[in-house]
């Protein structure tokens, strides 16, 4: 939950400008109608809803947002973006905030979700494609939820939904190459 300390708005709200430069979205335009929160499938699980995230940007409440679970529980379903009367691409803003939060090395409010994403990419780097069994194992290990979904495994195997031998493709090398190039470029731009 956000702490209730007094807001002391700074004249230069760099969060507002960050969002503007990285997403081209003008958050000042938000008039706080709440349609985004109203339609957001995961808002109920968030500490502050999309509307309050927009408000926090207007007020420059950096920690409020970047430590929030909201940016992690956003599943990019785009519902808010499509319905916003002020035509703000809220989902895109959420994404940019997720990235900002990581670039500042903040511990995510929903650690598991980040772990999942990382594990996912790990699989892709190794196999060029997602190997779901690997993902499952990797996630359980990293998230410390060792038995997560374990009870499902038998049925999944029975239904041949999971393959014990991952496909390796030439793509794997390709992915690693791309991934490393991306890292270089990103360093270059920092």
């Amino acid at each position, binding site marked *: 939950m956000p702490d209730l300390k007094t807001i002391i708005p700074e004249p230069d709200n760099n969060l507002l400008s960050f969002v503007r430069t990285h997403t081209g979205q003008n958050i000042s335009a938000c008039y706080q109608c709440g349609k985004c929160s109203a339609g957001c*499938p*995961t808002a*109920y*699980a968030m500490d502050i809803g999309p509307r309050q995230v927009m408000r926090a940007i207007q007020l420059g409440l950096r920690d409020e947002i970047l430590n929030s679970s909201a940016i992690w*529980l956003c*599943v*990019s*379903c*785009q*519902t808010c*973006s*499509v319905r916003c009367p002020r035509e703000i691409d809220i*989902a895109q803003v959420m*994404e*940019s905030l*997720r*990235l900002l939060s*990581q670039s500042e090395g903040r511990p995510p409010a*929903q650690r*598991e*979700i*980040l*772990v*999942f*994403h*990382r594990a*996912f*990419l790990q699989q*892709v780097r190794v196999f*060029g*494609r*997602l190997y*779901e*069994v690997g993902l*499952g194992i990797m*996630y359980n290990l990293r*998230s410390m939820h060792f038995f*997560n*979904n374990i009870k*499902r495994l038998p*049925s*999944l195997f029975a*239904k*041949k*939904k*999971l*393959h014990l031998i991952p496909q390796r*493709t*030439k*793509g*794997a090398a*390709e*992915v690693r*190459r*791309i*991934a490393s*190039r*991306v890292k270089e*470029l*990103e360093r270059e731009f920092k």
Partner: protein
Amino acid sequence: MAQVKPDTGKQEPGRIYSYYPGCSQLATAEEYDVSARLVSRKLGIELRELENWICCGASAAHSTDHLLSLALPANTLKQAEEKGLPLAVPCAMCFSRLKFALHELENKDTRELVSRAIGKDVSTDVTVEPMLKILADDDIAIPLEKPLAGLKVACYYGCLLVRPPEVVNFDDAENPQTMERLMQKLGAEPVEWGLKTSCCGAGVAFPRLDVVLKLSYRILSLAKERGADCVAVACPMCHANLDMYQKDMKAKYGQKLDLPVLYFTQLMGLALGFSPRELLLNRHITNPLPMLRRKGLI
């Protein structure tokens, strides 16, 4: 409802696509891939799978690394571009990522940056189409063998297929009708309902199953309340969330749903006369066979 022409067997020009199955279609959603290929062949649509295609990065990439989330799909787009064929994509997530990439590559600077990332210069000169759009095309004759008479279908699109319109430009974001029209062509009876584009919880099943249960249950229970015999989907993630956890929903919300969730391609397959085995109907966690038997469709 377009009237049904007899199968001439011969391929019409422009019915050849590059094909990008997407990771899920290799495993949890194999039945989607298989049925899509079967149905396409039957309808005279040739799918040529891109060799050595790689993952689109899914939500993992765009949640953690913006450039990577563009580079991975861009690489696939490049492959498709080289083939000079439109790209057919069954998975809604892949489709969404590819489309987003295309959208952002419109920007020159982004395009140059991404080109450097994948070491080839990408262009936006490639069409990406969802399997649903290709197969539901009204110009395609569907040689019905077993019309799905009396089958009430709740067509579920989820998020990524239709949102955001300016990126995916496919059907209507709030009340799409493509799948409904297709089901009517198959002789089935689409039910109208209000949650066809509501989110099922997408990729958070691993870390936050509770969220998926809540959202998916809301969707399924409405479909059932509207009298649907099954839910038709066009996305492996939607399928997983709706199909796999019905037992957990029963445990949590006390309602026994037992509402089969099928890929629209599987329903097409049935109508075209393929056997449940061919269509891997046995793969689903929520077994659709009893319902189909009851309906006399198998």
